[in-house]
């Protein structure tokens, strides 16, 4: 059964305007398809069903990377992860994003998967993906956060009833780069900081983004402020290839001589959204990058963490990644 796609009406618009017309008309019935790497799981497994799929793949204006007037970048939401990993402008200015995109899944998936799809993908909590009636699926139980729940991959921070984590590697990097997303609908355009675009269960337990019915993520904007900074990205997973993060770290440092003038330290897969480690950032700003400052930052990085039965390991793992990020970050 899993090899067969269920029936649905397929729409393949060739412009954003046509896509918005469709999403407006179909409203909540429209399943928006980008690279399909997340969608096909849901649909083939029959865990979710839809009457209509709007495939954005033929819309060329949603693809490509452009330099914006201020020196930042505008990246079309349908740009593939392979293109992002290899794009010279991204590698020159925001190596962090290129490295994160290059650590997503496998080459085959990166060839088809898009930046927008990677940002909007649903969580990998297997209770939820299996189709149980958990909070995120509209029920009123979290099966992962129980005395017997299998929660090795789940959240240690920011949980609220649901303990699923964000699986997106690029979201972690883009949060560190203070990026924003452009969301278009027939009603107009919204530009939302990525930190507000991605939401945790305390805000909305049924969705991982603030994307509304009828809206399409068209562009990711990366401002110039972190262009050419020192970056570090590391993803720890059970397998080096084709696996989701157990914990990842995206870091950016702007230097003033030998001292850190500003810093971003963002942990992935520890919460339902990329989790900025504010205390660790404060611990390193104004100091030299050294073993001492790395230790200082690591010691406060996950204050307030609430590990579940099987994921206590994420605390020392996150602390070690913070140490390594501060110690080993490199310039472009």
């Amino acid at each position, binding site marked *: 059964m899993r090899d067969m796609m269920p029936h649905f009406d397929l729409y393949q618009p060739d412009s954003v305007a046509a896509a918005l017309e469709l999403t407006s008309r179909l409203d909540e019935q429209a399943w928006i398809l980008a690279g399909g790497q997340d969608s096909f799981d849901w649909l083939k497994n029959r865990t979710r069903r839809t009457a209509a799929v709007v495939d954005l793949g033929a819309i060329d204006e949603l693809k490509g990377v452009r330099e914006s007037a201020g020196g930042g970048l505008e990246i079309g939401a349908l740009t593939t992860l392979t293109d992002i990993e290899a794009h010279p402008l991204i590698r020159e200015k925001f190596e962090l994003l290129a490295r994160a995109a290059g650590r997503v899944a496998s080459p085959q998936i990166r060839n088809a998967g898009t930046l927008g799809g990677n940002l909007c993908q649903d969580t990998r909590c297997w209770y939820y993906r299996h189709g149980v009636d958990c909070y995120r699926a509209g029920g009123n139980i979290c099966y992962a956060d129980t005395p017997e729940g299998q929660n090795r991959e789940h959240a240690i921070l920011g949980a609220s*009833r649901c303990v699923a984590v964000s699986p997106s590697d690029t979201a972690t990097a883009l949060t560190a780069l203070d990026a924003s997303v452009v969301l278009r609908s027939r009603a107009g355009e919204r530009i939302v900081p990525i930190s507000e675009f991605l939401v945790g269960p*305390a805000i*909305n337990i049924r969705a991982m983004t603030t994307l509304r019915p009828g809206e399409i993520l068209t562009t990711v904007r990366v401002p110039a402020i972190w262009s050419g900074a020192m970056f570090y990205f590391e993803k720890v997973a059970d397998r080096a290839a084709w696996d989701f993060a157990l914990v990842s770290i995206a870091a950016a440092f702007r230097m003033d001589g030998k001292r850190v003038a500003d810093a971003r330290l963002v942990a992935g897969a520890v919460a339902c959204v990329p989790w900025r480690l504010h205390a660790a950032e404060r611990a390193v700003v104004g100091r030299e990058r050294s073993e001492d400052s790395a230790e200082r930052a690591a010691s406060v990085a996950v204050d307030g963490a609430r590990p579940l039965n099987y994921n206590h390991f994420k605390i020392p793992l996150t602390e070690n990644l913070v140490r390594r990020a501060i110690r080993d970050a490199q310039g472009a």
Partner: protein
Amino acid sequence: MAAQYPPAGVELAASTRSAAGGDAAESHGRVTRHAGIDRLFHWLVAVTMLVLLATSLLPVIGIRFAWVEVHWIAGILLSGAVLFHILRAALRKKLRIVVPRPADLAELAGARPGKYSIAQKLTHTAFAMALLTAIGTGVPLMIKAGTPFFERDPYRFSLSTWGWLTVLHDLAAFLSLFLVMVHMYFSLRPEKRMYLRAMISGGMTRDELRQYHDEQRVQRGE
């Protein structure tokens, strides 16, 4: 038997007690209707209930924010206030003063009520039922929501028990919403506004007491 002055259940405000004596002084004097501790309880309950209703209902209509922690913290404050209120009323043997009794039906024929009218007693009873149900179901629901007080365990009860707890909690919430709306409406009606003033300042005038209440029933603690 001559009427006791001030009657039981109605205390003269300290500021007017020394002036009480003549008819004019009595007719313009103020009588205490709610002690400070009772008013504090009322407004604490009011604030916590509004917070509880807002945190539970606003997300349902699409206004999304982090509501869970605020909700259960307000719930604990409300529970503490209600427990204190019940204990205080029990210790002072005042539990029956707000319980509707057959004698209250005489008000339907035009008789004046004691301290509380039958409508106020029924409202209080409905509020008590709603709040006790919400608290009684809300405490076990905290086991599932995840709070510092309990180890989170959604298997503590059966699915059907959780279902009943949730349904009863939600019904209590909707009853509370209805009662709050009714209560606020009547508290703002011109002819009832003295009760709102009394809940703010603590007292009402003796004229108002005589006009709307039966002093002898008040004296008997009804």
